[in-house]
């Protein structure tokens, strides 16, 4: 599936939630389901500096297709990361770089992109794109 298709499905999922609690419960469950990273991968190099919760991210390149591995010590942050990983995993570096992230707004999580949320999400997206950029060269 393309980034468009995966994010389209997510937008549809989120439209079904009647209130904030359902939405957050879903994000939390995504966080719980995302496989934890190996402790050995949780290095300083892989840390995405967010102010409050710690976020780790690695990526590997298989013939121009990018795969991410990520974790956080905060479960909501981890859930949001899981969303991003769901959307960008297995996509081409070029498509990742070209995505404008409007799907985050469309699923109603725009507030998590505001800088004072301090959850490292902005830095997280930047780091994903940085990996994609490195792999696209």
């Amino acid at each position: 599936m393309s980034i468009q298709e995966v994010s389209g499905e997510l937008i549809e999922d989120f439209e079904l939630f009647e209130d904030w609690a359902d939405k957050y419960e879903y994000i939390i469950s995504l966080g719980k389901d995302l496989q934890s990273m190996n402790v050995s991968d949780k290095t300083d190099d892989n840390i995405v500096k967010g102010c409050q919760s710690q976020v780790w991210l690695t990526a590997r390149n298989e013939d121009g297709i990018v795969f991410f591995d990520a974790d956080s010590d905060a479960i909501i942050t981890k859930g949001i990361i899981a969303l991003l990983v769901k959307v960008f995993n297995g996509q081409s570096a070029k498509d990742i770089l070209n995505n404008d992230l409007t799907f985050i707004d469309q699923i109603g999580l725009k507030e998590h992109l505001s800088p004072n949320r301090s959850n490292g999400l902005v830095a997280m997206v930047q780091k994903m794109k940085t990996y994609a950029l490195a792999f696209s060269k």
Partner: protein
Amino acid sequence: MSATKNILDTHKDFPTLKRIINGKPLVYFDNGATAQKPQLVIDRINDYYQNENANIHRGVHTLSQDATSAYEEARRKIQVLINAPLEEEVIFTKGTTDGINLIANGFSRGFLNSGDEIVISEMEHHSNIVPWQMACEYTGAVLKVAPINDEGELIFEAFEALLSTKTKLVAITHISNTLGTINPAKDIVRAAHAKGIPVLFDGAQSVQHMAVDVQDLDCEFYVFGGHKMFGPTGIGVLYGKKEWLDKLPPYQGGGDMIKTVSFEKTTYNDLPHKFEAGTPNIAGGIGLGAAVDYLNRIDWKEVHIHEQGLLKYATDQILQIEGIKIIGTAKNKAGVLSFVHDKAHHYDIGTILDQLGIAIRTGHHCTEPLMHRCKITGTARASFAFYNTKEEIDVFIAALKRALKMLL
């Protein structure tokens, strides 16, 4: 002066507290970060810009004289509030951080030499650490850190043992923003003065909880910001004993802080203007004066009883929740409740509480060395002001239980 206000009646004076956040009435427990402003303060700032705006000092026209009077009147109000002996000992700053930087900058120009020492404590806010590190870097002085115990109290004997002939200043927080610990300010001054050492208190967290009397404390410097005492942001106060302020060099150069200027030689203005270069935050100063007017209508004894009641009630309630640990259990503690949960991250707790209309603070609270001491990455912190109520704590506790149910 108007009659004393009933403390339980103050909530309605603060318009922001009437907000609906995410569909719920706001419960504002982030007073340690900044306090809300009473209508009186908002109106005063508005009125200044509507009717009085002019640059102060030296203007011959009526507007300028009105603005100057209002600004200088605010200084006198602060003087009375903190019981400073002299009006010129009240210096307007941008805030607590600015006040500490002013003193650190002054000390590093002629008052600190290589090998001299400055004593702080393990519970300091970054703003009472970093300016001293910068001063040390510049002068070769050394920063000494007095330790705290597991309850979050200063280990007094260890603090005293750090004081020596090398110590040039003790700079310590009056109330810890993260732990709520109220430090034994008078004992600290007594111990330092016994060795001829001046003392600076970071009063950022004190002025909203208690009546501060600088003469009773007998400290050389006391700094605080306006916004945590129900006044505007961008304005703060440095109180300093005149003999010290006279001998410290000016912080910034510019207009207002000079007596005469020529290319060969400039002479500096008298206190307080010597430390107030440039056009100040006039509206901020006048707004802060209005905040003092408001505070003059409340009874600090009543504030103390009310806030201690809130703290005890919240502490008792929160400890009934499994997995909660309170960070900061000093015997003498202000209305600050910092906590961690053994399974839920403070960030997650804060995020869910926000959805339920409750504003708390999460993170390291600008006290990273203290977090290292406690071996944690951060806490969730509820900090109370006199306008908060027991009912709000009930809402907070119920919301916290709901958040934990969702998160675990």
